[in-house]
C-alpha cells in the first residue's frame, strides 16, 4: 500500500443518501478474479445511460469533476453488500477520500485497508460541503483533520492503528502474521476447540 499523509483536492459532490455498494459497483461487474480495472464499473448505472453514453449531469461526469480525488457523499455512504470491489473501483477511478456524516461499517473497514480515507464530519460541515461543490480541501491523515478553504480545520475520527497504517503504507496482514506465536498459544490453550 502507498503511504498517505495528506490529500489536497477539489471536491466532487454526490448528495444521494444511503448510497449502497450495489450502486458503487453493480453485481454484474463482480465476476472478476482481480481488483484491477474496476474504475469503469464505478456507479455504472448512474454514470451511463441505456446506450452506454455518459449521463452529462451526473456529478462524476461533469468536466469540473476531472482530477477530483475527494468525494463528498450523502449520509450512510457504502451501506449494503460487503464487496471490496466498491473501494477498489473508487480508487481505480481516482477517488482517494470519502467525506460524509456517516459511512457504513464494512465499507469503512474495506476502505482503510486499501488506502481510501473515510472522513466523517459533523452535519454543519457536511451541509456546507454539499452546498459548495468543487472547493479545495485537504484531508490531513497525520493531523486527523479536514481543512476547508476558509482556514477552518475539522477533526475526523481515525484510530491510531489505521492512521499508522495509512501514514506508513503498512498492510495489516503483516501485523497479523507477526502475532503468529500468540495465535498458536491461543489455539493450544483455549477451553474448547471449534
Amino acid at each position, binding site marked *: 500500500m502507498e503511504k498517505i499523509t495528506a490529500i489536497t483536492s477539489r471536491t466532487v459532490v454526490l448528495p444521494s443518501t*444511503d448510497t*449502497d455498494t450495489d450502486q458503487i459497483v453493480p453485481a454484474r461487474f463482480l*465476476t*472478476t478474479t482481480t481488483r484491477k480495472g474496476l474504475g469503469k464499473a464505478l456507479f455504472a448505472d448512474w454514470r451511463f445511460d441505456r446506450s452506454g453514453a455518459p449521463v452529462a449531469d451526473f456529478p462524476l461526469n461533469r468536466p469540473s469533476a476531472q482530477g477530483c480525488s475527494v468525494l463528498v457523499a450523502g449520509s450512510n455512504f457504502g451501506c*449494503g453488500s460487503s464487496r471490496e470491489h466498491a473501494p477498489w473501483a473508487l480508487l481505480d477511478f481516482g477517488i482517494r477520500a470519502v467525506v460524509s456524516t456517516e459511512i457504513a461499517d464494512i465499507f469503512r473497514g474495506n476502505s482503510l485497508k486499501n488506502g481510501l480515507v473515510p472522513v466523517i464530519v459533523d452535519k454543519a460541515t457536511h451541509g456546507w460541503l454539499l452546498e459548495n461543490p468543487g472547493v479545495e480541501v485537504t484531508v490531513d491523515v497525520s493531523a486527523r483533520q479536514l481543512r476547508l478553504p476558509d482556514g477552518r480545520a475539522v477533526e475526523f475520527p481515525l484510530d491510531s492503528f489505521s492512521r499508522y497504517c495509512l501514514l506508513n503504507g503498512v498492510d495489516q*496482514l503483516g501485523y497479523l502474521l507477526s502475532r503468529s506465536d500468540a*495465535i498458536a498459544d491461543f489455539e493450544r490453550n483455549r477451553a474448547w476447540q*471449534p
Partner: protein
Amino acid sequence: MGAQSLFEKVWNDHIVAAETSETPAVLYIDLHLTHEVTSPEAFNVLAARGLAVRRPDLTLATLDHSTPTVPVKTLKELDLLVESSAATQIRVMIENCAKLGIRLLGFDSDQRGIVHVIGPELGITQPGKTIVCGDSHTSTHGAFGALAFGIGTTEVAHVLASQCLLQRKPKTLAVNVQGRLQPGVTAKDVILAIIGRIGVGGGTGHVIEYRGSAISALSMDERMTVCNMSIEAGARAGMIAPDDTTIQYLSGRPLAPQGRDWESAVRRWRALPCDAGARFDREVDVDASVLAPMVTFGTNPGMVVPIDQPVPAGETASFAKSLAYMGVEAGKPMLGRPVDVVFIGSCTNSRLSDLRDAAQVFRGRKVSAGVRALVVPGSQAIKKQAEAEGLDQVFMAAGAEWRESGCSMCLGMNGDTVGRGQLCVSTSNRNFEGRQGVGARTVLASPLTAAASAVAGRVADPRQYLRG
C-alpha cells in the same frame, strides 16, 4: 467480571490479543465460510506472498453467487450456461480449494447451497463460535448465538493466512420484541418493521441482540430470517441467545459435535445467554402483536410500510428519486400494484419453512397470467426435502419455476434477472436500484406475501389467502 451480554461472552472468548488505544484486538475466528465471488483476490494475495491457509479445517467453501440454478453436471455445461467471466470465477474457486486443501461443496455435492443456508443445515454453525464470510449476510448465523459478520476480501486473506482478524469492539443494541404475531405475519415482517423503525443506518457500529417473547417463540428458520437482515439496519451482526430450540435444531446434524463432545458443547452453550443486569449501549422495544405484513416501497429496506398503509411522503431529493425509480406515488398503498415477477428464495427466505409457507398459498391456485414466478431453494438438501414433501409439485402445478439452489435473482449474477421497469415481489433482502437487474424494481416481502402476489398478479395481502 460483571454481568455480560451474549455478545460480550463470545467476544471475550476469542481475544488473542486485547484491544489497546493504539491497536485493535486480534480476534480468533472459528469458522470461515467462503464462496466464489469475494475470494479470488484473497487467494491472489496468499499466492503473491507464498502463504499457506493456516486452518483449512476451519474453512468451508461453496458455490452459490454466480452459479446457475438450472442443473449443471460438468464444467463444460457451465460454459454454456453462464458468461465466461462467471465460469472462470467458479473454475478458479475449484482450483484454489483443491490446491490449498479447502473443503469445497461443489456441483457434485448434495450439500451445496447458499453459504448462509448450508452452515446451519450442516450443523457447523454453532452457538459461541466466531464466524465470518466475505458476504454481509453472514449475520444470519447469529441466530444460533454465534458472533457472525461479513468481511471484505482483504480480510478474507487475513483469515485464510492467520485465522484471525483485527477488530475494534463494536457497541451493543438490544432489540426487545414482545407479544404474539398475528396470523399471516412472519419473521420477515418483524425484521422489516425493525429496520423501518431504526433506519438503514440505525445499527451502524453495533451488534444487535434480538430478545423477548416474540423472538423466543420463533423457529430456527425464522430466527435466521431476522438475523439475516441485521446488516440492512447497518449492524455488523445480529445475535439471538441459544435455547432449547437451538439445541434441538443442531442435534444430530452431520457437522455438529457428537457423543461426549455434544454433551460438553451443550453445557457451554447453556452458559452463553446474557446475564441478568448486563448493559447495552442502546435498547429499542417493538410490540410484535400489532405488526401487519410489511412491504418495501423504495430503494432501501428502511423504506417499508404495512401492506395496507399508504406510501409516506418524504422531503429529501433521495427519497423523491427513490419513488420515481420505483414508479410509486406517496399517499397510495403498495397493495394492488401490478406485479411482473415473483422471486421466492435467497438466504433470507429459502428454507423449508419458507417454501411450505409459499406452497400453502399456491396449493390449488395458479400464478396469475403474465407473472413469472421463480422458486429457488436455499440448498440442495432443502430441494430434496421439499420434493419429498411434494412442494415442487405444488409450485409447478401453480405454474411457478422450480430451480436448483443458489443466490439466483437475489443479486442477478447468474443470469436470473428482472427486466427494466418490471416490478418484482421478492423474499430477498435488498431492494437497491438495479439489484435484481438493470432498472428492476424490487418489493421486499415475506414468502406468504410473495406467493399471494404471484396468484393475484398484484401486490396482495396474504391474510386473504390463508385457509382457516
